[in-house]
């Protein structure tokens, strides 16, 4: 990919515009003061609208148009900045994706330092990004399969004699290697740098007992909800969806790994001031508390828990009791080792 910002010629534009108008399919022009934000879609959109979009519109008069971004928006993000074709102004990124894009200098500073909120959790804000919600990779099990109490740690999951049952793990080295190390006795604070050889030795032991390697979040919900598996390493909100739907299942927060998702602005964004204003708006505790009513993700502003009922807080990753059980995933380590470890993981899986 070249970095030249080649603009289409007038004639090209006229031809394309004419052709598009001819079949009546041209996109309506953007009008007035409005900001296009890309959230993960699905249940996020109504949750964020209630917490952020509607209050922001009321306070500033700037209309928020929300679109669903891709599951992995990095490629789109990069192409957008390189071609100068900004289809949205603000986008949610995991801190993984944030680091990849920051390394390629594709992000604009959010200039939040002045208004930074003291309630934000450690790692919840950087010069290029504001964390908004926290999700966690946890263990979930079917309570109907383990009526006398299920596995409470990854070591228990690896113990197929004491906890017989069908198991599912994520078909990805990220989180899975950490789980293998914790199962082998590595304490969570000493996980990084990962001892990759030891992790694969540990994985060798569980491999014959893994019935499903899942690839998508909804798939993991389906596995747990239908009883296809009895134990599953999965994202907390995916497990919660099965529980909310009536599945007899429980989440184990102990030895979970959490990760943060938040707003970033593409470099060269044409509405940078409005975009920054919007990002700063989303740091406030009271506003973050409002999305937790529908979404089972934790706010990054821990003061939000003052406004969250205790019953609801119990299922959120950043509630003090849950957060204390977990460790943060280390994006730095993965950024440098991901390609090689993923290759090894794929090879191991086929072997």
């Amino acid at each position: 990919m070249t970095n030249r910002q080649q603009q289409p010629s007038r004639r090209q534009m006229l031809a394309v515009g004419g052709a598009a108008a001819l079949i009546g399919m041209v996109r309506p022009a953007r009008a007035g003061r409005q900001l296009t934000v890309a959230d993960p879609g699905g249940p996020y959109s109504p949750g964020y609208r209630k917490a952020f979009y509607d209050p922001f519109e009321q306070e500033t008069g700037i209309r928020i148009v929300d679109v669903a971004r891709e599951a992995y928006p990095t490629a789109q993000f990069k192409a957008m900045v390189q071609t100068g074709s900004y289809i949205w102004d603000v986008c949610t990124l995991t801190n993984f994706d944030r680091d990849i894009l920051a390394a390629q200098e594709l992000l604009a500073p959010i200039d939040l330092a002045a208004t930074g909120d003291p309630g934000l959790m450690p790692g919840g804000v950087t010069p290029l990004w504001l964390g908004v919600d926290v999700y966690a990779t946890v263990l979930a099990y079917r309570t109907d399969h383990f009526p006398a109490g299920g596995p409470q740690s990854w070591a228990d999951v690896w113990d197929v004699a004491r906890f017989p049952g069908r198991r599912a793990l994520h078909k990805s080295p990220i989180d899975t290697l950490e789980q293998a190390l914790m199962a082998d006795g590595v304490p969570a604070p000493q996980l990084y740098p990962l001892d990759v050889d030891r992790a694969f030795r540990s994985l060798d032991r569980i491999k014959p007992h893994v019935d499903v390697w899942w690839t998508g979040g909804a798939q993991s919900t389906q596995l747990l909800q239908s009883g296809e598996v009895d134990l599953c390493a999965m994202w907390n909100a995916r497990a919660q969806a099965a529980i909310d739907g009536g599945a007899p299942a429980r989440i184990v927060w102990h030895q979970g790994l959490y990760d943060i998702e938040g707003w970033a602005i593409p470099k060269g964004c044409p509405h940078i001031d409005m975009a920054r204003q919007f990002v700063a708006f989303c740091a406030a505790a009271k506003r973050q508390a409002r999305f937790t009513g529908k979404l089972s993700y934790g706010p990054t502003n821990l003061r939000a828990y003052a406004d969250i009922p205790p019953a609801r807080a119990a299922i959120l990753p950043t509630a003090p009791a849950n957060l204390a059980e977990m460790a943060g995933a280390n994006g730095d380590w993965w950024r440098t080792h991901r390609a090689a470890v993923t290759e090894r993981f794929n090879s191991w899986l086929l072997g």
Partner: protein
Amino acid sequence: MTVLAATGAGRGLRRRLSRTPLWGAAPGVAFLAVFFLFPVLRLLLLSVQDADGGFSLGAYARAFSTTVYLHVLAITFAIAAETTLISLLAGLPLAYWLTHLPPRRRGPVLLLVMLPFWTSALVKTFAWLIILGRNGVLNRLLLAAGLIDHPLGLLHGRGGVMVGMVQAMLPLAVLTMLPVMLAIDRRLNDAARTLGASSVQAFWRVFFHLALPGLAAAGLLVFISALGYFITPALLGGPHDTMLAQLIITEVQEMMDWNFGGALAVLMVAAALLTCWLYERAFGIASVAGGAALPDPRRPLRRLGLVLLGVTADALSAAGGGIAARLGPRLSGWALPAFCLPVLAFLSVPTMVMLPMGFTSSSFLDFPPPGFGLSWFRMVLASPLWRDALLRSLAVAAATGIVATVTGALAAYAVARQGGRWGGALFALFLAPLAIPRIVVAFGLFTLFARLHLVGTSAGLAIGHAVLALPMVFVTVLATFKGYDWHLDQAAATLGADRRRVLVLITAPLVRSGLAAAFLFAFITSFDELTVAIFVSGGIVTTLPRQMWDDMILQLNPTLAAVSAIVFVIVAAALLVAELLRRAE
């Protein structure tokens, strides 16, 4: 090439070109050059660059430094080959049976064959999860019937992958073979019988031989389409069922390593083109390409192909003869429907399971639904998001169908009429979008569209979908032309019609069943397309599959089933109206 001529070459050349039917391919060639070759080649160029844009073979060095990528490539090919074989073996009797049904009954049965088309690939895959799971419909039935003691592990292995892939590909195979088979003169069969051939012999010696171009086309279409699949193997397969397309997507989207992703894409494209070449040598797919001569039977590969076909035909013929002899003449007449009806049931089961789940009162996809209600339909119909997505999908699919059918059919006409060296080149060009993984096309288009400000427009979606649909249209129409009698064109020309009038008044009406099938393929390709939609829609103009995908990544609820039911009703109504209009004619 006609473009070249127009910009001024010698007069002689211009005169020669103005007479050749090759001009028909010009719109398609121009379209593919701009919206396919240019973006894809630019993307593939990345594979020989390093992250800073300098020349480097590092990506290839990495791809070959371990066996894992070649291993995955081999798995990808094995899955595609198995899918093709099963689809052809199941599709041939089904298509043959369809040619024997009276047209009045053929219509409704064809609708059943096409049923899987109208259910999104995602929804079908989830339907199989619900049917084949450990606590799934099938296992519960078998347990209740006392046939098994423990639930069978039907999923998460190659068997599950085959169920999902064959169900998705079988309609494509049947609908590609059918126009060719319908064009075969039935009296040839009678003639063979008069000359003493048994019905089994007449089938293999006469009908099968004449249907070969259709079979060859079906095999190639299924194989190449299957190469790019990744969702079905990921959800229904085990740890060994990793497809290369999945790894390319991971490199491009998650790792942001476009150089390495480009190298993997080149690996896949090279292997796919090599397969096309071998296939052509062995089975003479170019014989579909009209005037092109049949491959020389003395070539070793061609000989191998003929021997393979011969052995298969003999084996099947012997088996067929044996079965027919054992059953006796009365029962053997039932053998074909006895095989075809279960196949039809297999094709429609996921839809039949999915439809009632739209009416569930539960918030999960459970079968049978614990209770019934209309809440999911209300939710979908009240949501502007779903309504817009549905309308946009229909509009984009219609636009795609028109653009692809017109340009693709003209190109097929040109190749069928002219053939020769140019015919072979055009054949390769028009098939190329199939051989390139969709993710590569989608990503290339995205970078091009970003410059043309076509990202997030319906026009951009229709253009992208037309690129993907052109091969389907081209092969289908070309196969139809194979059995076409060009003397009719000559007769019309003798009577004073110019080339355009012949095309419009004689050729087009005579191949209309092929054209209709081609339009349908193009329409469906667009209607169920996800990869290009993900990249090109920018989340702003959402199509139905894109909306379903977004919905499914984060949550899994009966919305998908309700949407499927709505689509089903709309499509069924449209097809019914079309059928009634045809009968009124």
